[in-house]
């Protein structure tokens, strides 16, 4: 079973790689840019507000530099702060202290609108379970990031190709409720790549998936890395940890 899956992954990889190189790289900047994502002395505390609850130190002085074409895995037990690091890296939440640098630019100096614009150009974020939006087909979900720039029609073919690349070419008109967990995760990855992302941040992509589905996701992520995209992934999946270029294990 595993051999068959690996074989399939290998065959798909070539296809994904070619497509990403030809389509995504036409939008993505060249690799000689500054470091796409850098986290410097990140500390994240929760609580300790007006309610009088004790503050929880989730992450203390976390440092990480993510280079293009590199997959960095953040591993650790549940509640160790993996997702927190990812959301901080994606600019979705602010750290208690420390700096987040996107291509050398600190988020501290940016407004919410600037962060949103830069995120759209730089970061693709896939949260745990691959949150898709109900009522919209897989294709529509993939095209959603193109809405703010008004490029829905221009990116439609690319979206189809991406869905094809993640193995969902025949399911692109299905709604989230009609997709399995693995399929939803793959749609979410395709959605994250639609704008020619240079950093893909993925939270627990294989959690609650069977091995076959998990391997398929892992293959896609690896292909993405090979295409020069930096991948930051949070997971405690051994296979994913094994295949990562760098690893941070949280206590």
């Amino acid at each position, binding site marked *: 079973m595993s051999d068959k899956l690996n074989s399939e992954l290998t065959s798909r990889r070539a296809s994904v790689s070619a497509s990403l190189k030809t389509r995504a790289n036409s939008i993505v900047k060249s690799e000689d840019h500054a470091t796409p994502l850098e986290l410097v002395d990140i500390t994240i505390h929760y609580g300790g507000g007006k309610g009088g609850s004790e503050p929880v130190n989730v992450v203390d002085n976390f440092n990480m530099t993510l280079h293009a074409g590199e997959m960095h895995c953040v591993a650790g037990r549940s509640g160790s702060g993996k997702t927190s690091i990812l959301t901080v890296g994606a600019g979705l939440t602010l750290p208690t202290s420390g700096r987040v640098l996107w291509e050398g630019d600190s988020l501290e100096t940016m407004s919410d609108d600037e962060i949103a614009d830069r*995120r759209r150009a730089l970061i693709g974020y896939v949260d745990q379970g691959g*949150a898709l939006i109900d009522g919209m087909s897989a294709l529509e979900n993939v095209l*959603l990031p193109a809405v703010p720039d008004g490029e829905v029609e221009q990116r439609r073919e690319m979206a189809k190709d991406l869905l094809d690349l993640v193995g969902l070419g025949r399911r692109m008109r299905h709604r989230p409720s009609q997709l399995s967990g693995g399929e939803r995760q793959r749609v979410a990855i395709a959605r994250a790549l639609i704008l020619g992302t240079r950093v893909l941040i993925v939270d627990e992509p294989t959690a609650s998936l069977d091995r076959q589905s998990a391997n398929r996701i892992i293959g896609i992520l690896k292909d993405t890395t090979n295409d020069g995209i930096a991948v930051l992934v949070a997971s405690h999946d051994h296979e994913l940890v094994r295949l990562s270029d760098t690893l941070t294990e949280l206590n």
Partner: protein
Amino acid sequence: MNAVQRFIRSRVLLLTAAILIIAMCLSILVQGQSQAALNRTVDENSRGLYDILVRAKAGNSSGTGALIQPEIASGQGGISFEQLDSIRGLGGTSVAAPISLVSRVTQNLETPRLDAMDYLGYNAGLVGTATVGQPDATDASKWPAAESVLSDKPKTYRLTASAVSSDGVNEQTLFKTSAEGSLGKGRVIEEQTPGGKSTRIAGPSGETGIKFPAPAGGSEHNLFNLSVALPLAPQVTESVVAVDPAAERALLGSAGDFLTPLEKAPPADARNAGAIGRYFESLFTSGIGMDQLKEGPDFLGVKLKYWAPLMTQYQQAKRNGQLTADSQAIPLIVRSGTSLDLKYSVKIEEIDGSGKVVQDLGTVTRSLDKDYLPFVSRSPFALAWPGSTDHSQLLGNGAFGQGLYNPAQWSTDFAKAPVYKDGEDAANGAASKTATPGEWVTVNRLPDKASNGSAVDQTQRKPVDERSYREGLETGKKPATPLPIVYGTFDPQQVKDAAGDVNRLPLGGYDPTPMTLSKGADGKDAGNAALKPSLSATGLVSQSAGAITDFYGLAAARGYDSNANVIDAVRVRAKTAGTWKQAQPEVEKLANEIRAMGLEATVVAGSAREDANIFVPGYKKDDAGKETDLGTVQQSWVRQDAADAVSGSLTGTNLTLLFLALCGATLLTGASTVSYIRQRRTEAGILRAMGWTQKKIRSWVLEEFGVGAGLLAAAGVALSLLSWNLATIIVSVTVLAIYVTAALLAAGQLKHQHVIDQEPQHDERLITIDSPLTFANRQLTTHRFNSISLAVAVGVFGSAVGALISVLIDIPRAAGASALSGLAAASIAVPSILLAFSGVLVGLLLTLVTGRFELQAKRQYIGTLQAMGWNPDMLGQVRFFEHALVGTVALPLGVLGALALGLALAPYAALWAGLAGLIAVLCWIPIATKVVK
């Protein structure tokens, strides 16, 4: 976990029960307070001085809820004294006070004069004799030096006398007469006469004096002034009513004390005018003390302060041959002051020989005012030359005031009450009527003879026609000229105050009912100018009667010599005490007993005054005879059964508001139930998987609801016991029923439903998602149930707001147009607003609860969009468009619902309800957008 724990854990159920209990408590509390305030206001203002108005059967017959005109004393009579005695004999009667309009009386005021100060000093003329016997005269050493406004050498003056009357809207010049002549400073002339020296005051040599046409008597010098007799003032007409003084005092209480002297008037057989006149003449000839002059001589136990006019009128009538052996003296209590606007002016100009004006000395004016007394006119119409000082008080105050000298002319023409035709009622029940014009009445006439018997120059004044809105009245035989005998005075305002402001029942002609002009003849707003009585006193405008007499006086004035049916109305107070509602059965019983006598008995307990709008046509005419309308006037009439109508209507409004608030609570319960079912469906599935039967799951749910039901029931019982009224019990039971229905519905909805996996949708008709708007549209379409639920909730909210606004707007109209309704509506305004506000609050909670159905999902996809790089502005647009689209669906529902509810509850405010519904829904959109953020 037992049912109570599960109930507490289930926040939705806990919230629902709490909201229902709070809504129930507040609504009942507020409604109870509102009802109590309403009852208190109505009770305090709904039982006036009397309970039943009795009139002759042929009179103004009225049904229930009729508007009673204030002129109950019409002169029509129709009730006999035997019937009055029978009413008094009824067991339920406490007071039965009869009243009748006697007649209208025209009187000529005393000759006006213009006094030019011409004081020659203490030593001059007749001062010595003038101060003899005057204890309050100023000591001789303190008299000021001589002074005069006139010159030593006579100058020629032109005096122009005019009288202008105003009805509050139009002014009318009644006459304007000029006279010329020379006037100068007086001098003392001493002449030797046989047996001594004579001193007199005379004008300077060459003085011609000034004389107006007869009956004005010219000018003369006296001790302090040069006095010029002016043209007669216009005639003033007054009406007289007859009452039973004792019964009237019982009716009015202390406010009727002014009638005490009238009770002491002599009986009919001791009222011969000649005998009484001779008695007062004898007082004058036998010598009358200063104290008697001041307080009035005692006449059968009453000090007659105004005895002098009676005596002079007696003398004048005797001289004119008017007095016969049948002439009676009529005892009167006369009104203090007048509302008649009559200004008498004299313009004084110095002229040269050619008639050219050398100097305008000014115009002096005098009006009828509070010092005026009908039948007495104790304050002479004296005008002062500019710069004059009145030194006459140096002689003391004991001067004999003659007052009116001509007997008044008593007439029964135009004594009947005005006739009105009904018009269309306004939305709030305000009555509209049209006055029926009667004949023209000629006023501003001069008497045939002057006081000295000489003929009067009739060419100096043009009589004026005034429109009467009353009809003539058939009476008894032509009466002998009566003489007024003034027993005292009364203040109409005090009588009015005694009658109260809200339940001001008509007491008769001496209870003034003012009128205001609301719209002119052109239909434009006239600013509610107060209309003043006209000269004839027969016009539409009314003021208090000039005098009150007793029924012997009526017989003398109207020429009755037998016990005729002359009582216009009897005001009956029932013996029973308590509020109008408590007294109602006994009052009705008494009214029925009176009706059995063949009389019209109108129950006025529970009535309130109400403004009637009366259109007055043909009010005046110009010289060409063209008639002009006055416009629309307002006058307080009496709305029968106003208390019942107000109480019933506002109680209905109270209950409507309570009902609407509870309707909101019902919908909230329904929404909460849906929310609860959504929460528990997953749990029910797990339980089913564990092997629980449907019945077991049902009872599991119902147990939780049972805890809430128990709490509601306990609250309902507690509230019912506390308030102890039916409304509370009904509300409590209704709320409990709502809750139990919701519970059963929820339990039923937990049945297992098989979910069928749908095939992929290849719907090419779907709109491409390329903007926040299209995204919002897709989300709402996807979550159709939630969207529709929310739209319905918002629509219901809009409808509720509209309905409540319409009820609030409609309260004054629903209450009616009476004075009581305004008072009652004001008393419940705050509770009503509270109830309405709570209803709106419940509606808002409903939208919040419904909005929470998908709040978690919304937050999730907003987060997803944010992660995709949608900026805050676009996310805001998504939220706004979602609510705007829901609002668009809710808008017709809210507006039409509000309109429909408005039409059902308060048709006159339906448009406002629709507008309120529209605004409520439009306001919800930005508020909800903010909340979801």
